């Protein structure tokens, strides 16, 4: 039972991590880490400025 719970917990954690990566929340957290700042309107605006160029060049598949 414990092993099942552990596996389920790991699965859910991975799903959440994947969603956070796909939806760029993880990228924002890394940006905050790098910049040594906390979440705020200003830091999010700065993140978007930096991130936009990177993301806009990514091809999207057919």
């Amino acid at each position, binding site marked *: 039972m414990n092993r099942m719970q552990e596996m389920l917990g790991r699965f859910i954690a991975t799903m959440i*991590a994947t*969603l956070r990566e*796909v939806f760029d*929340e993880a990228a924002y957290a890394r940006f905050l880490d*790098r910049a040594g700042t906390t979440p705020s309107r200003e830091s999010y605006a700065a993140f978007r400025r930096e991130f936009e160029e990177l993301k806009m*060049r990514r091809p*999207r598949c*057919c």
Partner: protein
Amino acid sequence: MNKTLAILVWGMIAVLGAMALSTIAFHRGEPINALWLVVAAACCYSLGFRFYSKFIAVKILALNGLRATPAERLENGRDFLVTNKWVVFGHHFAAIAGPGPLVGPVLAAQFGYLPGTMWVLAGAVFAGCVQDFVILLFSVRRDGMSLTEMAREETGRLGGFVAYVAVIAILTILLGVVALIVVNALKSSPWGTFTIAMTIPIAILMGVYLRRIRPGKVLEISAIGFVLVLAAIWGGQFVSQNPSLARFFTFTAPTLAILIMVYGFAASALPVWLLLAPRDYLSTFVKLGTISLLAVGIVLFHPALHMPALTRFADGTGPVFAGKIFPFAFITIACGAISGFHALISSGTTPKMIARETETRVVGYGAMMAESAVAMMAIIAACVMNPGVYFAINSPAGVVGQAPVAATAAISNWGFPVSSSEMQSLAHAVGEQTLFNRTGGAPAFAVGMAHIFSHSLGGERLMALWYHFAIMFEALFILTILDAGTRVARFMIQDALGHVYKPLGRTSWYPSILATSALIVAAWGYFLWQGVKDPLGGINSLWPLFGISNQLLATVALCVATTIIIKTHRGKYAVVTMVPLAWLVAVTFTASWQKMFDPNPRLGFLAQARVLAAGPATSTTSRLIFNNRLDALVTGALVVLVTLILVESIRQWMGILSGAKEARVKESPFVKTRFAGEQG
């Protein structure tokens, strides 16, 4: 698992898979249950991953878990980043999953469910997954180099140039075709158009929330946005029922085409982050949710497939698009089995996130299996319908006639009985005025999906809501690809123009932004306009053109992969990429030849131009003749370019294998990983 047990389990999976495939292949008469397709797919994917991908990983690629990846060596917290393999898998899948594997198999269902199913399974296991896997690994070993850079490095300057031109061409044609699919799905549909229009204020609200209220909480606001979109779908029925409101959201195909071109230009040229980025998130949220929901719906409902295994249209006379099973089933399915475009993703963001070389197997090979599974779901969605209904939705007016009675008579004469009252009641059930001549695959997929959902989740009374949910899902998805694709193509053109005149390469210089945006929108807009004005519905000429360009890009990717495999002295195993390469060359070159020179005017571009020139001249005749000649020219140019890279690659292979040429592999030097002691 001990060895005996493993042999027993894998043996049982192989037997079960063989049984399911035989049932699919040889069952005739009564409708077959969709679960046979699900079981066959699950067994083929399991066996392919366990044995074939392992063989490639060990014998050909010699994956080395001790070798540090660029994510580790060049980690910068931005694009180079060590990431959990399942997270990379999800990220990679979200990037490769597009409308192609949904639309292509729906269109190819005109041949019956068998050709599509077999190619989606075999093509993915032996070609698509292999391409994605090897290109990902080769990119990882070259610091995340792109396909065009690898082509230049490994097959010479010509290879790089051809890859670059192929990417621009496929993007242009892709954007034109997907825009046409949206136009065909939304024309004369106030409910669908209202729902899509409502995503604009919803996205702006999401943007304001992200910037002002809860900065960075993307998942949270995407979930809220999703609920608002559901409310918009529900509200759409009242708009469509109210004539004074409905007229604001009822557009003809040409008007919608113009609106989409204006949207594409604005998305590329203006700093509209507030709209585009939140809508991108919303689209991803809906996409991942809908695909999961559809998988659940198919398993719960396990519908019967009413489409026969093979239809009479295997002979090339199909109403959806002209051409025989070979090569057109393969060209049409494209992304569900192998997509050249995936090579761009496998050599783009993904290689920069891989923590260990050994993980490229699950990400590259595995994510393409998931994409192929999406294509299987699309086949099921298309084939659950009564075939007569499928052909009534997908046949253009130029083939079956404009009037419902004439269309149903023509389709019934082909052996697929359908009545105009049946079509009328179906249109009523999904909240549309008509479902005749809704070419493009999206409306047919939406009807199939609504059928599956309404039988498993919510009952028949929700059919209209499910239909418009599916239309919204496809249109939102495609519009996101339109704006992202236009921007990517704009950057590529700016990069190239920057070599001619430096300021043109500056992505912040407005004259350059406006000029290159206008150029790329004009290019795909031309194909869109051509499709809208085409009496045969546009899809007949444009989808094969897209399929050909996509598969030619895969040919380029497999040329690069084979060259690298031969250079690493594993020539005897190069057959793993050479066989799919040879197949793609046979398919694409045959399809291209037929699209250019076939004497049947429904198939050959030049034959159609000749028929138009010989017929009575109308105000559009000269334009239609020009369009057909242009399509032939584009097809020919693509084939010539790919022939060049193929010849150049073969010359290299011969030189290396005969010892006349030195095999110099341009990999990054080996550095031992810091994760050496960890499991993985």
